[in-house]
Structures are given as C-alpha cells and as structure tokens.
C-alpha cells in the first residue's frame, strides 16, 4: 500500500475525513432527500385540501336536506266531502281528487290561525294557505285511502311547508329576496314566523328524503330519494348476481386452466382494454342490444344492471386474476402432489386463499358501478319516476331511477331548493360508497391470507 501511495503518478491521498462533519456530496444528497420529502408532503396536502373543500361544500349544501319545515295541523276529515255515500265504498273514496282535500287543509290552517288569533295584514286565506306545500293534499289523500275508517274524525297531521318557507329557515330566502320574488311574499314569511312562535311550524328531521319518491319541479320540499335508492339497490343486485360468478369463473379459467397461447393472450389484452372503455360506450351498447334488440323496457333496473355488469366485469376479472396469481404456486403443487385434481386444488386451496382479494375487487367494482351516471342516461334511467318499482323479480323490469342519475336530474332543475337536494343525494351516495369500502377493508383484514 505504501508503495502505491508513494509513487508519483498515484492520485493524491484523500484528506482524512471526519465522521462528525458532512462532506459536500453527503450534504447535497441529504438536501435532495429533504426536498423530495417536502414535495411529497405538498402533494398529500393538496389532496387533503381538495378532499376537505369537497366535503365542506357538499356537507354545507346538503346536510340541510335531511331537515324539513313542517306544520302541525288538526285536519277534520269531513264525511260529506270525502265519502258522500257514507258507506266507505273505496271506489267512491278514490274518486275524490286532491282538489277535494286541499280545502280541508286550508280550513284547518284558517281555524288554527283564528284560534291563536294570528292575522297578518294584507294576507288573505288563499295566500296564507300557500305556505303549505302543494304536495300536502296528495299525502292526505293517500293517508285517507289507506285508513278509510278515520273519515269523519279529526286527525293531527304534519304537513310539509312550501319550499320557499322551508328555504327561509335554511337561509335561502330572506325578507328582502321575498319582496322581489313572486313565488313568496313578505306577509307569508311573517305568517310563518308567527306560526313558528305558536309552535305550529317547526323544522325537524325529514326521513321522507330517504324514503319518498321524487317530486315535480314545483315541489322540491317533497322530493326524496326512495325510488333512486331502490333502483340503485336493484341494479347492484343484478350486477352482483351476474358479474361475480361470471367474472370469477372467467378468471379461474384464464388463470388456472387455459393454455397460454395466442388466443388467451388476445383475450387478456382485450379484458384490460375493456376496463378502459369509456362508460358511455357501454350505455350505447346497452341501448342497442338490451333495449332495441332484446326489447327490454327502458328505465328498468335490469337493463341498468346489465350495462353496469359489462362495465364491472373487467374490474372483477383483473382483481380476481391478480389475487389468484398471488397465491404461491407451492400450494398448488402441494395439492396436486397428494393427488388432488386441478379443480380440487383450485376450489379447496387456491380460491379460499384468493377470496379476500376477489371480494375486495368485487366491492370496488360495485362501488364504481354505483356511482356511474353516463351509461344510465342512455338507457332512459334519467326519466322522472314517481312510482316505486315492485318487489323483485318483477320489480327489476319496472321503471326506476338511480342515485347518481337523481343527482344529475336535480341539478338540472331551476328551483334553488334542488341544489340542496342534490347535495343531500351526494351525501347519501357517499355514505353508501364509504360503507362498501369499509366492508371491503374489513373483509380483507378478516380473511387475510396466513402462510
């Protein structure tokens, strides 16, 4: 060693470095690492900020849709108006339209106002009654048809307040805006205030938002998600029942049984490509095949489910194949080595070990399908549906809506009350997605492979 150091053309011996002082090179490296860490933190920060902004905006706009303003009135169900024959003939009772029920509610409000001595200058009885939702007579009629025995009695009812009155308590409508709005007058708001002081009008939890069907443009206060939730649920059932077995069977065949040749390579590439096909293309396919060719009804959950199945299949197949691949081949060897057939080795050993991955993939696929809007528009699920679909399996063929489509639908309407409704629907959709993802995480944790 000393010879080399002593030779004249050898490189100069490096300076003795101390471990306590950092060399230039190390400093640079540390700085680069620090910088990268900061970039990463900034990226995560931006992501979190976006999430917070989204949640604040949606929760801020939408949470109020779970609360609604109601009036509590004692309504007299007069026999002469509702059942002229007096024999409780259902046919006769059903002949009375909502026009027959409107005056009863109006009278009840008038009576209550007189009792409480509430009078607002410049507000006649008709205008006063306009603070009650136009949906109320219909709801009262439904109630009477369901309970014909109660005709002739006086019942306490919680009737919906008009959307503008509701908006007043949620900050959408003010005295100033009412003065220039032809839909609501300052006097009506004053009446609402007086009724609130008297304890007749109150804002409380509104379960109808979850259970009631959609309502027309003029009645945002009555619009609910019932049909949309049921429609989405039906579609998810169809997707689960079709996509899971087809997807898992296809993956098992491709991964475990199929010979590796040009054809299976081609199929593999195409499955990956299918996962990237824009969803609206599946909508057009569904329209062409399921509705125009097969003649299935429009707006039906079965068609929506079939379209979403096509869309979800690649996701499930890719996830299933990945989890089958992750099962170590030694397990297959072990099973084959004791004389199990190929199928026994797959079903007894490989599939149970791959199950958590398959379930997670399926749930993620379902969650993706649950939020899909574009293909459903093409098959007519964007239509206004007020009737609940029937029970399965016939219900799969009845018209229904779907959650994301309902959001889209509501954002298209003019009444600002629907903005709140749409945000509320997004909250419901997000809750469903969070629940599904939580299930996926729990399943993964629970059946985590142990070897």
């Amino acid at each position, binding site marked *: 060693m000393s010879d080399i150091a002593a030779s004249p053309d050898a490189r100069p011996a490096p300076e003795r470095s101390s471990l306590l002082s950092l060399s230039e090179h190390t400093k640079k490296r540390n700085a680069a690492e620090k910088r990268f860490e900061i970039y990463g933190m900034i990226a995560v920060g931006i992501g979190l900020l976006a999430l917070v902004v989204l949640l604040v905006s949606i929760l801020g706009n939408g949470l109020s849709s779970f609360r609604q303003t109601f009036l509590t009135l004692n309504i007299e169900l007069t026999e002469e108006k509702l059942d002229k024959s007096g024999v409780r003939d259902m046919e006769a009772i059903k002949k009375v339209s909502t026009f027959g029920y409107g005056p009863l509610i109006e009278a009840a409000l008038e009576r209550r106002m007189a009792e409480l001595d509430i009078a607002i200058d410049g507000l006649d009885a008709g205008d006063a009654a306009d603070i009650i939702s136009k949906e109320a007579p219909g709801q009262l009629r439904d109630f009477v048809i369901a309970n014909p025995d109660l005709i002739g009695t006086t019942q306490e009812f919680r009737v919906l307040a008009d959307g503008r009155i509701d908006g007043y308590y949620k900050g959408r409508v003010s005295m100033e805006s009412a003065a220039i709005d032809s839909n609501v007058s300052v006097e009506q708001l004053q009446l609402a205030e007086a009724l609130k002081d008297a304890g007749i009008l109150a804002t409380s939890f509104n379960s109808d938002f979850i259970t009631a069907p959609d309502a027309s443009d003029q009645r945002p206060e009555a619009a609910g998600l019932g049909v949309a939730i049921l429609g989405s649920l039906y579609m998810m059932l169809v997707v689960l029942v079709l996509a899971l077995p087809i997807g898992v069977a296809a993956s098992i065949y491709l991964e475990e049984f199929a010979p590796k040749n040009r054809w299976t390579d081609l199929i593999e590439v195409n499955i990956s490509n299918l996962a990237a096909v824009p969803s609206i293309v599946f909508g057009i396919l569904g329209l062409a095949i399921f509705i125009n060719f097969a003649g299935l009804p429009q707006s039906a959950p079965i068609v929506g489910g079939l379209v979403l199945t096509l869309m979800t299949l690649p996701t499930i197949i890719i996830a299933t194949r990945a989890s089958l691949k992750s099962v170590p081949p030694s397990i297959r060897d072990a099973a084959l*080595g*004791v*004389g*199990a057939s190929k199928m026994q080795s797959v079903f007894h050993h490989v599939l149970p070990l791959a199950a958590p991955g398959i379930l997670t993939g399926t749930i993620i696929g379902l969650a993706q399908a649950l939020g899909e809007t574009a293909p459903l528009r093409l098959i007519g699920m964007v239509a206004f549906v007020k009737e609940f679909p029937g029970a399965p399996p016939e219900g799969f063929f009845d018209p229904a809506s779907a959650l994301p489509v309902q959001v889209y639908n509501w954002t298209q309407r003019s009444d600002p009350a629907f903005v709140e409704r749409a945000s509320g629907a997004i909250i419901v959709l997000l809750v469903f997605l969070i629940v599904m993802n939580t299930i996926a995480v729990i399943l993964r944790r629970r059946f985590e492979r142990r070897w």
Partner: protein
Amino acid sequence: MKDHRTTESETMNDTKISARNVQVHYGDTHAIKDVSVDIQDKTVTAFIGPSGCGKSTFLRCINRMNDTIDTCRVSGDIHIDGEDIYDKAVDPVQLRAKVGMVFQKPNPFPKSIYDNVAYGPRIHGLARNKAELDEIVEKSLRRAALWQEAKDRLQQPGTGLSGGQQQRLCIARAVATDPEVLLMDEPCSALDPIATAQVEELIDELRQNYSVVIVTHSMQQAARVSQRTAFFHLGSLVEFGETDRIFTNPQDSRTESYITGRIG
C-alpha cells in the same frame, strides 16, 4: 449412457420403477437426455448432481407433475410395477395418490395440522368415517415422527409449526394417502442441521414401507440415507449404482470429479 447403468447383481428387492430412454424438453431446451434407470422397492435411491442437471425434472416425471407445465414434453417409458404411467388410460391424479411427493420448501396448506394430513385421504375417500380418518391421521403423523409434538395441537394451523416440523408435516401428508413410492425433492435444503437429521432418520424408517427417491445437493446426505445413488450431469444419467460403490469407487471420471468437488 446405458452403459453406466448398474450391472451389479440386484441384492434384495424387485424393481419398482423402471424408466427407459426418457427424454424431457422444456420448449427448445433438452432437459433430460435419454435416461434409463431401475429403482427398487423398499430402497432409498438418491439423485445427485450439480444444479440444473435435470435430477428434479426427472423426479417430477415419475408422478407426472411435469404435466402442469405447458411447455414440458416427456417421451420414453416410465413403468411402475410394470404399468406405463404415461399411458393414455392413466389419470395423473390417481397416479399421484400412489406416488407421493415432498417438495423442497415446506408447503403445508394454511389449514390445521389435522386437515393438512386428512386432506389426501378425504379426497381419495380412504376413510369411511371420522374414527378411521383420525386413525389415518395419527398413523401418518407417527410415521413422520411428528405425533408426539403435534398430538395436542392438531387443530392449530400447520403454518405455525417450525420449518423442520412443517417438512415432517408435509411428509405425513404425503404418506397419508398410503403411497407406494415417495418422491422427495431436496426435502432438507430449507432446514437446519437438527431438523435435517430428524428428516433423514425419518427417511430411513420410511424405507421399510416405501420406495423412496430423494433428490439432494448434499453428497453427505446421499451417502447417509441412500442405498443406491444416481449421478446426473447436464441432463444425462452418468452413473447409477450402490451408494457405497459410487462414493468410494466411481467408474466415470465425471462422477469422481463431482464427488471430489472439482465440478458442480
């Protein structure tokens, strides 16, 4: 290569497995070149040779595990008890029940110890009821010298055992189907010396009932456990004979180079 097959007198047993002119191709690779060998019953036969010489491949031909590899083609004849195992009428699944296999890495199923051993008998319908199955499990674990350690924890996962215990569990699983031949592909390479000694002892006991074929990288192991040894080199069977003779008086120069550490 046939010249190198043993010509010594067969001392005690009949031929169990007889291979003639076996050729194996993986795609374009010629992995086994014209191997002919006779393996005797109730004997431990060791396959030795450098890595990639084809000894594991040849072992996997004996229970047709190579069938699971798409690109693998096997030609030639392998007979067990005079029956051609590559005959079209032979179902490899049935064959593998008769020819058990233990792999290099212990690979118990992620199930209980009991279920690991009971799996083979269950799928082959060897037990008519729970009592018979219990009996088979106990007998197999005893044969694998694992019963004393495992009898109180039969319902615990097999993957929770130590490496040596796992390998003995795999042996128990292999003998549970009552095979006639037991193939072992480097069964001790993942084990420490103590576990290796236990497994070797076990192999010697298994010889009472089975024809055992073991692939090993360790020449000491081959010398310790086997009665007959086959030396493979570059896909060919170079020499086959009594273990003692192979290690003391090899007839082929390649064998001599290998066992003295000059090649491989």
